């Protein structure tokens, strides 16, 4: 798993991701270098994360409130959000 220096990141969840994890947001200290590494790390913690992150292709990720992708670097990012595809309009 890609690692970097541990940093404190706000992790935010929406819609059914939030419901499965049971939290709207949490602070995580992690050395994960990418969102993909971060969800692997969280999924190893507790089954509820595994249930939320089971299929990354059904998820979207935003870094500091900009839509991004699961292999983007987390270095310097303060807020990571995971959510299902949007249904606005």
């Amino acid at each position, binding site marked *: 798993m890609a690692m970097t220096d541990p940093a404190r990141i706000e992790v935010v969840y929406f819609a059914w991701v939030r419901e499965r994890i049971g939290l709207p947001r949490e602070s995580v200290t992690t050395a994960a270098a990418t969102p993909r590494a971060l969800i692997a790390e969280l999924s190893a913690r507790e089954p509820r994360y595994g249930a939320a992150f089971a299929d990354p292709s059904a998820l979207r990720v935003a870094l500091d409130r900009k839509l991004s992708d699961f292999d983007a670097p987390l270095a310097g990012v303060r807020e990571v959000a995971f959510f299902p*595809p949007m*249904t*606005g309009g």
Partner: protein
Amino acid sequence: MRVSVQPDRFDPAAEMAGFGTGPTTGAVVTFTGIVRDDTGRMQALEIEHYPGMTEAVIADYARAAAERFGLSDVLVIHRHGRLAIGEPIMMVATAARHRQAAFEAAEYLMDWLKSRAPFWKKEVGADGESWVAAKDSDEDALGRW
């Protein structure tokens, strides 16, 4: 340009009043989305959003539409929270010199907001709740722009 992300109900007709006045406007298009009950068993629509990101994303698309289609004015209102059947969900208005630009800008905004603005809809019904799934056709619609 005006963008509003709000829990409060709004009146599309009242929002249209005074929109797009000015000597270069020849065409105004509005789109209003309304809570619809297809099953006869829906009680409400709950809309969750990502405060801070939502406003920024909508403003980015509104600016992009204004530039690309030469709009003289643009308005986007989108609600969040709990909405009853028949209530307006959101509204887009575009003002341009010619009808094609006004129509295209409104459709461009709708297509992008549908799949890129961080809102999530949940239908609340007599039988329980369910998140509305994103449609492939909405993602496909982006291909035209």
